[in-house]
């Protein structure tokens, strides 16, 4: 069974919500990324989104765009990222081996590497799915088909600007879970989330049986706690990545502890990890 399906089945039985941190692969370097992934799992992360750095990420705000830029300046390549993940899957403890990993990757990268090669390499590296934020459903049929053949989930996004009829169609074409984008805009922490967010997610719930996870703008234990009532999972990106901004100039242990404590605080707001 795909680890994503297994995770949401288990959480449903336990009546828990998934905590889903995003981090950029290779910021400040891939060795630290590997340590961070293990720490995040230890501190309560249920699923990890691995950002594949891209040179021109138009959906990302300054925090993640700068993080991608730092990683690329380090010379991080997609092949190195997959190698790091493959090693983690082989050598990590059981919790790390069983935690679903998905890549957040631009179609510019998938297209250049070739759809088949990207998916083969991702599957071999132990990834369970992918989000391609610049590939709308109109363009994603081929990728969807090839991903499904390899038991990889292609997670689609629904946003506040998506008309309802279109949202229903996107939900039908999604596998794994639905990524509901909380705000019309780019990634980045927001003090306040839209007033109709819960209402929109509640409506979407009536249209699909898939888990619905909310991302964009979420960065505090209060927000995570608040949205736990409507979502199956909460995605936290910029608030974590922000803590890597000057990581290259600090002792790694301090950075790992700070990020771990932050995720620990979010996990607590969701009621803590099971056992």
């Amino acid at each position: 069974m795909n680890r994503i399906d297994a995770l949401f089945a288990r959480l449903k039985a336990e009546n828990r919500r998934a905590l889903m941190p995003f981090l950029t692969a290779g910021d400040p370097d891939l060795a630290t990324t590997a340590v961070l992934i293990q720490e995040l799992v230890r501190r309560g992360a249920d699923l990890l989104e691995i950002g594949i750095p891209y040179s021109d990420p138009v959906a990302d705000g300054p925090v993640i765009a700068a993080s991608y830029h730092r990683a690329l300046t380090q010379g991080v390549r997609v092949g190195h990222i997959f190698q790091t993940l493959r090693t983690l899957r082989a050598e990590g403890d059981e919790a790390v081996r069983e935690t679903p990993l998905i890549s957040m990757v631009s179609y510019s990268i998938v297209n250049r590497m070739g759809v088949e090669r990207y998916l083969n390499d991702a599957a071999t590296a132990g990834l369970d799915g992918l989000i391609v934020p610049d590939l709308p459903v109109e363009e994603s049929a081929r990728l969807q088909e090839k991903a499904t053949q390899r038991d990889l989930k292609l997670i689609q996004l629904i946003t506040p600007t998506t008309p309802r009829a279109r949202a229903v169609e996107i939900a039908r074409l999604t596998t794994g879970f639905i990524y509901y984008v909380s705000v019309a805009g780019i990634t980045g922490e927001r003090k306040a989330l839209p007033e109709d967010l819960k209402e929109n997610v509640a409506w979407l719930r009536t249209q699909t049986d898939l888990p619905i996870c909310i991302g964009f703008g979420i960065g505090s234990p209060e927000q995570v706690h608040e949205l736990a009532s409507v979502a199956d999972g909460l995605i936290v990106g910029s608030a974590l990545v922000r803590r890597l901004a000057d990581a290259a100039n600090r002792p790694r242990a301090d950075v790992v502890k700070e990020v771990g404590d932050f995720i620990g605080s979010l996990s607590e707001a969701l009621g803590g990890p099971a056992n």
Partner: protein
Amino acid sequence: MTQPASTESSATPTIPQTPDTLGRFGAFGGRFVPETLMDALNQLSEAYEEARADPEFVRELEYYWKDYVGRPSPLYRADRLSKFAGGADIYLKREDLNHTGAHKINNAIGQVMIARRMGKKRVIAETGAGQHGVATATACALFGISCTVYMGEEDIRRQKLNVFNMRTMGATVVPVASGSKTLRDATNEAFRDWMGSSKETHYTIGSVVGPHPFPMIVRDFQSVIGREARAQILEKVDRLPDAVVACVGGGSNAAGIFYPFIGDAEVELVGAEAGGRGGKAGDHASSLTQGKPGVLHGSFSYVLQDDDGQTQDVHSISAGLDYPGVGPEHAFWKDCGRVRYESVTDAEALAAYGEAARQEGILPALESSHAIAQAFKEARRLGAGKVLIACLSGRGDKDAYEVARLRGEPLG
């Protein structure tokens, strides 16, 4: 606008002249954008289809093109340049004589009129050389719409005059400090703005790039260049030209002048890309002649990127050609062999800039200087008795500071 090119030229049915429903020109084009923008693009497609079918919209656009921009722009036989080149007669399509000094105004007025029609309160734009920024700021002033222009810090340094003029007309110019600080980064920032603002904001893209329907809209508005040039050359020499040459960055003036000639198989179409300092990655901006098919800024076209799909740095002496991608219709024309694309170096463009000044008393933009340099080569190849049109897409006032700096005689 009123007459599609196919009714005016002997169209060959093998080259489709509009994108399909997915916005594809052959394999190229499409929409590779976040879901957040899809509804805005669908609404824009609808609004544009309505506008171009509305005689009142077309009449008003043609009114502004004529009485405000100064269209039609002249088609001028450059005798001394032709003699210098030593071959075919070179005709210059004088887009530099338009209000604001470049072809960009043709599209900016059209798109701002669409923004107004859609009830948008605000317009954003990206700009490289500043010509599209100035044109958009101009159109926004004309229609009383709020305007924000994203511009790379490196381009702000190179194009101070345009920045000053945009601000004078009431536009907000936002410096972009990310990446290479040029057109590509300005385009990223404009998209990021639009992600959160599309409800009240129209994004006026300045070239035939980006997701569908932008490449089609910009091409349609710029096609006025080619329609006029075709009619003017028929009137002057009673036949079609042997070749049409234009510079290609994103490719809007080239698409505009080529499109009405696409069905005229006897007319050679030649695009001149920025060859920069040489053929090494990072030293040029020749997406079509040196790049590979890939995705950038919402469409599938030729792109300069590495094996991982990361966009490569580019260089051109000309800020307007300093871009790692190109419009998808050019990619289509290249692959089906209808248009030939060549690379012109910084040095060749600078030399052509000087020749145009000395031989004709015309200061071309550094972008257009690439077209003139290529026109010299084509004129020599074609030989005497042949006729060639080069698109003089913009005037060179904006480049005086940069050219003086390169010559070691800074203007202060």
